């Protein structure tokens, strides 16, 4: 078990308390590729922040890779994130002051890995992701798809126990999105990297093994990938329309 969250709650504010996440349970096995879906304001981002140890839960327990994350102080959490977690963001979050290669190297720099090993790992990963040619370019010189692949490389280079992806395809065109997802499932299968991804996009979500639906901070339902991706995709669409986004309300759809 890589991740074990029990009765996770997050309450914002004191007087007019707002329950962003309410008694949420989540188990993820090693090597799984889990998607989280839900309408805006359902608590997806809060969940991701709690799992990423960026915010502390108000109540509940959270174990990642056998370690109890609650009760760690800020420095311990930073150490933990550096070693165990990888992050992919919707808006890439690459530093303009560094080249693509240096951006990818950040986790290794923070982990004080030897420069020979850095070189070795970055070359291998870059060739796998097809970004060797842009390694010495600056983030503002490359395309969105290339940026996100570089960001993925950064999330993967230190072999984290868990990769957290927040709408990784949100800013990409469909071709780049497809390329990125192929890479992610490739790595998921070959290196048994556990990935947890929040997304809006049913196509992106259809690459997952399993999808959790969340609404109003609560667990709603769960669907698994079957034999065919097309069937899974339809299942997701169905689920999504029944959930409703901002415009749709579940009650209306039943009519």
């Amino acid at each position: 078990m890589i991740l074990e969250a029990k009765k996770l709650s997050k309450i914002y504010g004191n007087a007019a308390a707002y329950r962003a996440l309410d008694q949420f349970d989540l188990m993820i096995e090693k090597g799984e590729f889990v998607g989280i879906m839900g309408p805006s304001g359902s608590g997806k981002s809060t969940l991701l922040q709690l799992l990423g140890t960026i915010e502390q839960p108000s109540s509940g327990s959270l174990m990642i890779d056998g370690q109890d994350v609650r009760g760690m102080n800020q420095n311990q959490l930073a150490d933990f994130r550096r070693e165990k977690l990888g992050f992919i963001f919707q808006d890439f979050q690459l530093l303009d002051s560094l080249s693509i290669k240096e951006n990818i190297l950040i986790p290794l720099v923070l982990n004080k890995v030897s420069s020979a090993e850095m070189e070795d790992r970055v070359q291998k990963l870059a060739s796998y992701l097809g970004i060797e040619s842009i390694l010495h370019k600056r983030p503002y010189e490359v395309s969105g798809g290339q940026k996100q692949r570089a960001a993925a490389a950064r999330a993967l280079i230190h072999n984290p126990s868990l990769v957290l992806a927040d709408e990784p395809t949100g800013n990409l065109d469909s071709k780049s999105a497809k390329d990125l997802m192929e890479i992610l499932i490739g790595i998921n299968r070959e290196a048994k990297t556990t990935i947890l991804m929040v997304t809006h996009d049913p196509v992106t979500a259809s690459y997952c093994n399993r999808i959790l639906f969340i609404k109003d901070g609560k667990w709603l339902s769960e669907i698994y990938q079957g034999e065919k991706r097309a069937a899974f995709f339809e299942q997701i669409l169905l689920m999504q329309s029944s959930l409703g986004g901002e415009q749709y309300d579940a009650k209306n759809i039943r009519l």
Partner: protein
Amino acid sequence: MTLKTFAYKNIHHHRTSYSAYFLSCIFAVCVFYLYAALLFHPMLKKDIFPDSFLFLMYLVEIIVALFAFLFIGYSQSAFLRNRKQDIGLLQILGMPIRQVVRLIFWENISVGALALLIGLLTGLIGSKFFFLVVSFVLQLSDPIPVQMSFKAILFTTGFFFCLFLILSWGSRLTIQKQSISEVLREKAQEKRQPIFSVWLVFISLVSISVAYYLSFPSSFVGVIKHLIFIILLLLIGTYLGYTQLSVAGISLLERFPKWFYCGINMFLFSQLRYRLKDNARILFLVTIFTSIVLTSVGVSLTYYNEADIVGEEQAPYHLTTIDNPLNSKQIEQKLQAYRMKTKAHIQFLILALKTDDRRKNVNNPNVSIISNGTLNSLLKQAKKKPISIHAKQVVQIWNSGVWESGEQKQADSFTVQQGKQSFSLQWIASIKGVFFNEHDLTRVMWAVSDQTFRELQQAGQSPVHMVDGYQFFNPKQSMPLLESIQRYYQAHHLAGKDVSGTILVQKFFRDLFSPLLFVSVFIGMLFFLAAGSILYFRLYIELPSERKQVKLLHKLGLQQKQGEKIVVRQIQILFMLPFVVGTIHSLAALNLCSFLLHRPIYTSYFGLWVSYLLLGIIYYVWTKRQILRAL
């Protein structure tokens, strides 16, 4: 790649935003070193500098040190705010705070070390010039020799190193306050539309007008009484003016749709309004800097330039003596020996009496009495109408430029003691103005009728002082004479200050204001650079959102040029507003400080103002170019 190389890369990337800061740092180091070099100079042991000048030097060093702290601290926090995103990301990726702090320290120290190096080099080169100027200001016969002072270098380096250390350590607080979740959340947090309170606008207007009103009575005594109050009111008024009045002003503009919706006005003002809270503080700071620079340099420059006139006004007699030990024949010989041609000579007696009338003389029981005849001859020399005083009457004469000149009717009585007798006099009027050179005895005089004067003189054994006043046709050559008489006084164990003369007072003013001018010019330049660099930061921090807006407006069909115009207008407002407000403040302050001149003199100020404006324009053009290039 290590943390250090990472730090260097960050600096390299942010070099444009560091440039103005870098320049100001260099200048701060340079000035700090120059003054340190002077303070550590071996010449100091020889006691050639007046104490007041040394005090001023220490003061400048402290001001520069404080300024460096504030300025570098402010710049650092501005940088950190600008790089919130980067730092948040690094923290998410697992960089502990101590490492972030170390990164910032490396960045600071490497920029700082370079600034220190260049600043010290310019300081070393500039010290020759600096010492020459100091020697000139202090009128030293041989200029101060230039020496490379290791102590000064060490002191400067140590100070700035500690500064960077403390500030980097302090940045820990700022970083901890920033939530790292900001990276994950929506970037653009909605800012609330700033509102203004009618009351605060009212308070702002009232405090500014009260401050200006109070600064108008141009008498020294009146101003000193209210000085702190005036400064406080001005600070409050200006601050509220920027935070409240400006929002009120823009809200008012909205009421004129014809104008508000014309061209780029809408974008410009809504942009300005939303940033007003941040901008207000900057504008306030820059305004205060501008006011201080224009006032301090303006006042010292004015007095320096007007020293001759002020001296003539404050000391209308070219030579005055009290109880001259030389008899009239000896004086005559001395005058001839120094080739002075006497235009007028006045001689009179002062009776030094005492009073215990607490109503009139709270701190000083001494009363200098002169006769009506003396008063009239003094008035005649000053080209004023004579006054006739009846027996038992007294007229008070405030004989100094620190009081506003004029005449005042009084109706009061007052008693003086002479021996065992007590005289009761009717106090009928007070006259203020400069009628004779100011000595301790002649500062406040009481004139009585000739008869009363005789009675007082005969009544007791109070000291009678003989006062002499000369006016010459060639007063410019009176310096050797005055010095010789002063030496004579000192040789006879008499107080040297009982000798006065126009040229001595002129010298006094020049000696007083040349170091002040010298020092205020340096601090003025420092403040000017800082003000410019703060504005530059402000603009630089807003650059990304500006870029976004220009791009968006371009997509909606606004020409790139037009979009740039919005930005340029903002730069103009940021530069112009503090300059205008600072000018007004400094004019009021100059008016307030020109009590000795009895009329504000704006010629020196105008020269200064024009040069400040020119420098400001240069800074503005440079900033505009940098910002537009980065856009």
